């Protein structure tokens, strides 16, 4: 298992490293349209060919990868923090707070995610630049993705609530806020870290789902979702295999995350 984790680490570092050097490796840029060579197969000039309107696919894959690998952790951090505050506090305080928080969490969990994302995204201002749309997409994902983590954190905090060391701390007159920050949160850290890491691939896949529906990152910014849209209409794998590169990369990255942080999931359950 250790070897697999090392391989996964190497894959992630390689993908992240290359995507961060996109300007050097793929000088064609992700937006420039080479209309004379639209939908071209791989060539010396365009290593993965061009897309339907002549944009360099290799450059788009690199920029799209960079975007997902940088913003998915940011969304994961946001959702984990929200989960820590809502779930952690609810579990620690117990009583009515816990019941209300659990009801709200259950309500959010029961909502159809995809429709909720589509609706929230439709409410965004239209004149957002592509960069703002990218940030907005991941921000929405982060703000809507705290529910599962919140459930887990609530249960963990509730188990701490009646622990001996907290009773003793309470008896010695430590205020509730200080108790939460100094004693409860540090004890929830392993669960928080696990939740953070397992959320990353979830957000990567969520963005890809939105992108496939055409509701993710705005043009001309690339994302894995918009790149995967190219697979629509392909009737056989052998037809244009280079179009599968974004899919292979997505699977490799998500699998690597799962392998590296498989142990963390034990805390998350």
């Amino acid at each position, binding site marked *: 298992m250790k070897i697999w984790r090392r391989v996964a680490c190497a894959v992630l570092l390689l993908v992240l490293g290359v995507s961060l050097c996109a300007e050097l490796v793929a000088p064609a840029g992700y*937006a420039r*349209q080479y*209309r004379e060579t*639209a939908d071209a197969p791989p060539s010396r000039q365009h290593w993965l060919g061009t897309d*339907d*309107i*002549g944009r360099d696919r290799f450059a788009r894959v690199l920029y799209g990868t960079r975007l997902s690998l940088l913003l998915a952790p940011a969304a994961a951090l946001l959702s984990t923090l929200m989960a820590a505050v809502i779930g952690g506090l609810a579990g620690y305080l117990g009583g009515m707070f816990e019941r209300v928080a659990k009801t709200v969490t259950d309500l959010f969990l029961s909502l159809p995610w995809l429709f909720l994302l*589509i*609706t929230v995204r*439709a409410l965004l201002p*239209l*004149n*957002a*630049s*592509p960069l703002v*749309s990218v940030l907005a997409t991941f921000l929405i994902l982060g703000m809507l993705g705290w529910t599962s983590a919140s459930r887990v954190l609530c249960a963990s905090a509730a188990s701490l609530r009646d622990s001996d060391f907290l009773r003793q701390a309470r008896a010695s007159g430590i205020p509730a806020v200080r108790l939460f920050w100094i004693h409860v949160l540090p004890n929830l850290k392993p669960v928080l870290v696990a939740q953070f890491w397992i959320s990353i691939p979830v957000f990567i896949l969520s963005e890809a789902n939105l992108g496939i*529906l*055409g*509701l993710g990152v*705005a*043009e*001309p910014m690339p994302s894995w979702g918009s790149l995967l*849209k190219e697979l*629509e*209409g392909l*009737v056989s794998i052998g037809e244009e295999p280079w179009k599968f590169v974004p899919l292979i990369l997505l699977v490799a990255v998500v699998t690597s995350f799962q392998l590296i942080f498989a142990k963390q999931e034990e805390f998350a359950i």
Partner: protein
Amino acid sequence: MTKLTSRSALPGLVLCLCLGLLTPSAFGQGELRFCLRSEPKTFDPLQVEDDASVAIRYLTGGTLARMNRQSQVLEPELAQSWKVSKDSRQITFKLRNGISFSDGTPFSAEDVAYTVQRLMDPSLHSPTSDAFRSGPGKVDTKILSPTQISITFPAPVAGLDRQFDQVAIMSAHSPKKEMAVLGPFMVADYKPGATVLVKRNPNYWKTDEQGRRLPYLESIRLDIQPNRDIEMLRFKRNEIDLINSLDSEYFDKLASGSPQLVHDAGPSLDSEQMWFNQVAKAPLPGYKKAWFRSTAFRRAISDAINRDDLAKVIFRGHAQPAMGPFSPANRFWFDSKLKPPVYSPDAALRALQREGFRLDNDTLKDTGGNAVVFSIITNSGNKYRERMATMIQQDLQKIGIHINVVTLDFPSLLERMTQSFDYEAILLGLSNVGLDPNEEMNVWLSSSENHQWNPQEKTPETAWEAEIDRLMRLQSASSDPKKRKEAFDRVQEIVVEQAPFIFLVNRNALSASSSSVHGVSPVILAPQTYWNAERLSLDVMEAQSRP
């Protein structure tokens, strides 16, 4: 000599046998197959609205007159002849004798009266009746004889005779109701979600030039298949025989392997277009409203869009730059004086500079110093429109205009377009089914709900919109085709001059047909491949080899 004769007789006999195999009677044993892209919502021909039901109505319904999809000329069917009154309110049909419905019930003027009365019954809410409702009041049907009927509408109906192309006659007496039909085929079996089987109507009245009864085909199986990838795969596997409205991408894929199976009938009636929000109460900043209401601004945008590239790159050459509201495919109504748009970013920039815009560090700014930035919305999931918007984004960047491409789910887009008017520009397509400009009255009249750039104006807000209103009403009220054409030509010219819609491309009508089907002659009007279904036939040998 005898030897010679006997030797020459054998190939002759073989040739006769081969010819015998190729006659339509030999083809008649087959079953044609193609896909419907959705479930038919009804078999009642007067309540048809969706494409799948329209297809069933086309195959099974008998009409008084029918538009020949190839020549675009209205031809007599159940009616031998007809006469339209000068005021376009009354039409008198002379019907054919000796025709029966598929169940044997005789056809007469009573059936026409029953159909028209039912069609115009407000409680039925027939979508087909909309074209006949040009004013309040009741329709009057007068049976002059068993083969003659006069129909009077409360108000003039433009292109009155052409509207009957959509009206399938129903039986007034048959117990089978809508299942008794006068068309070449009748519905024999329906498995919801799977197939509709239509079989040859044994009482169909038409014969071919050799006196053989039509249709040639025994039956047609319509498989319900919304997934176009699967439809394409099934065609490749020879499981279906026809594909209507093929995408340019699929067209090229098929053409690369079997060029003889695909047909490009040239520009269709469908157009792709964009427009700016000109609604006075729209929640937009004043300076943006001023841009969008400026003809010079709209025309400059139009000039800066490279339509040739849109047609060549996105539709792989299977589209033509659009010249105006009507495509050249509409042979009669297209205004031949319109010229193809010329791509000229330099001319566009000069025109904008004349209006006070200036280029500042690759960004165009208006007289108030506001950078020209706007968003174009299109419906998500339509890759052609998404790509068009992205290409327009790059085209307009050349003159310093920055565009944000926004894809929204269709309900959200509609809400912004028709309710909140919270949008700047929209890119959408228009599917034209009919040929007559009257069918677009709801688009061109300024008071109309579908006058997309500025709907439901109480009075026309610009002089050119008032002129379009006048011309549209003029052509609608006239029964003289020449006068109508003159008026609508002028409408087309005003629309191109003022650019309320910026027409982008007209897609070509692309289709595919298997080599086992004979008589296929694809056209631009729907249904492209089976418009002459009664004369299609199958090669028995090839059809039998199908899976």
